């Protein structure tokens, strides 16, 4: 997966047809990410799992705060390092009437932007996006946010949709301001 987030965007392509084709792909990807955000905002977790590939690697490393580098993430510490089995288990846990942290569910609003398709290999695409999540809980007006970038590999499916085969979530936060992370990002 490429992480060219420090690279400037490419200059406009001289080939209009190729550029139109790329734009259509980018639109498809954006539509999928918006759809995914809505599933998660509505807590349709099983429907979300339908778009998770069985060979998924889903990771959220801990951000580090270092003197001279802005974009450093731990090689060893993480919040999530999930495969399909553990991710499915987390989803099933929320079906339990004892999963107190999400009863009632966190109110979330996901804003997906800055979508860049880094590489289109036909059957798989490497995609970078920004994610801002508004969160509010319980009988309270208090709200907090997660903010970060996601690096995804999406696989085309026969039904025309995508499934996620690789996701790395890089939060901006070093110290979390939430009780817990009981949502998926």
């Amino acid at each position, binding site marked *: 997966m490429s992480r060219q987030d420090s690279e400037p965007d490419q200059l406009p392509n001289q080939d209009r047809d190729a550029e139109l084709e790329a734009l259509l792909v980018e639109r498809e990807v954006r539509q999928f990410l918006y759809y995914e955000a809505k599933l998660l905002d509505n807590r349709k977790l099983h429907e979300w799992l339908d778009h998770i590939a069985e060979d998924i690697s889903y990771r*959220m490393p*801990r951000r*580090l*705060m*270092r*003197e001279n580098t802005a974009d450093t993430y*731990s*090689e*060893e*510490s*993480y*919040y*999530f*390092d*999930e*495969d399909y*089995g*553990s991710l*499915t*288990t*987390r989803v*099933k*846990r*929320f079906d*339990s*009437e*004892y*999963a*107190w*942290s999400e009863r009632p569910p966190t109110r979330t609003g996901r804003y997906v932007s800055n979508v860049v398709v880094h590489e289109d290999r036909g059957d798989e695409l490497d995609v970078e996006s920004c994610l801002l999540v508004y969160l509010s*809980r*319980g009988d309270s007006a208090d709200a907090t946010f997660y903010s970060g970038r996601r690096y995804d590999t999406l696989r085309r499916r026969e039904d025309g949709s995508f499934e996620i085969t690789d996701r790395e979530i890089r939060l901006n936060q*070093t*110290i*979390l*301001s*939430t*009780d*817990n*992370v*009981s949502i998926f990002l």
Partner: protein
Amino acid sequence: MAIDDTGDWTERTLADARDALDEGLFPLEFFHDEQLHQLEMERIFGTAWVFIGHESEIPEPGDYARRYIGDDTFIFVRDESGEVNLLFDSCRHRGARVCRAEQGNTTHFRCPYHGWTYKNDGEAAGIPQKSKAFKNLDREEHGLAHVPRLETYEGLVFASISDEGPSLEEWLGDFKWYFDIHMKLPDGGMEVIGEPHRWVIDANWKTIADNFNGDSYHTAWAHGSVLDLELGGEETVGHAGTGDSMDRHIHCDGHTTSMRGFEDEDVFMTYPEEVVEDVFSRDGLSEDQWQVARQALSFTGAIFPNFGFLHFGDTTDDPDKDVAPFFTIRKWRPLAPDKMELWSWGLAPKNAPEEFKQRMYKMYTANFGPTGNFEQDDVPIWKGITDGAKGQFAKTSDFQLNYQMGLDWMSEMDIDENWPGPGFAYSENLEEGGMRLFHEQWYELLAENPRENALGSPINIQESEDK
């Protein structure tokens, strides 16, 4: 009690606390009180031994990490000679912070304000234009301030900002017998994996202290979802007082641990055979300690005032995978009456195979830390307690919380007369004496009495009279 500036507020609060503790109660309002918070910072966190970090977090000369005792910021740093220091992060000139990152490596800390520079052992190395500007300034007296007392136990570094009081050795007392089991069982000891998780939650620090001081009663309810999915066996997660496990609640010199295990079985917290055979060692442990480790399935515990640990076996991130153990230590740092920062570290035996260490870390994040399947459900509950303590009703109705389980007039409780370790062990886990012991110590320190005055519940007092 109402806000009162007449000067006897502390006295009246302590009298109320004493009355409540004598009944096995604790006023709800104590979980959210600005004046009590100030008193706790001064009399508990201003005197106690507070956990700073593990030596394995700063293995090389120059490695440092910013760490905290209450509201005070320190630099936890290994100097060029390999010694571990804890330096107050405040320039001796005008008080500016000299350390900006959370962790890193440096030979010097340089103040951004006027450029005063300090070696990583705190010594003042450079003062710009000193020969003209500060020609009579004694460099020796203007190094970064060292914390008054810093001591290490099995790689765990603790500090006290008070220059007097019991040593760490005395503070931990015989509880080391229990903590040795975790730290010395593997040959080569335990090491921290990566960087700690940090998150700030809107809850009073005493809520989590209660939880880690032997709340076996909560697991089946608060963590019912984990039980539903069979992510841990009945004996790890299930109801207190049920199942086939050998359950013990142990109090020792003010610190507590609860254990679940199986009598006369080789359990070793479900560490795999190759780790038990190749990495575990009897060398650092007595035969009795070894036997406790052998039969143990899980441990929870707390070192007064703000250090907790969990060493669990028989857990998984997926019911289709094999179970594995995890070991985590943590600190809760009070920030306000209704706010604390949690710090949580995953550990593994230093000499275990790399793949297994990663599996242990995975088990830690699957179960505890901000994303843990257990811990996700704890924190909002602690927040709820704190919210309830905030208002007038807790004060005006004198709302008392009940910690009476296990008191001799409330439950039938036995002491395990054959328990091999120091302190004493209740022969089951349906009791709340660990929390009462925590409250008693909290009280004694606020009253400026020796912590040893805290005897916990009447059954403890009876025991101590028998001895």
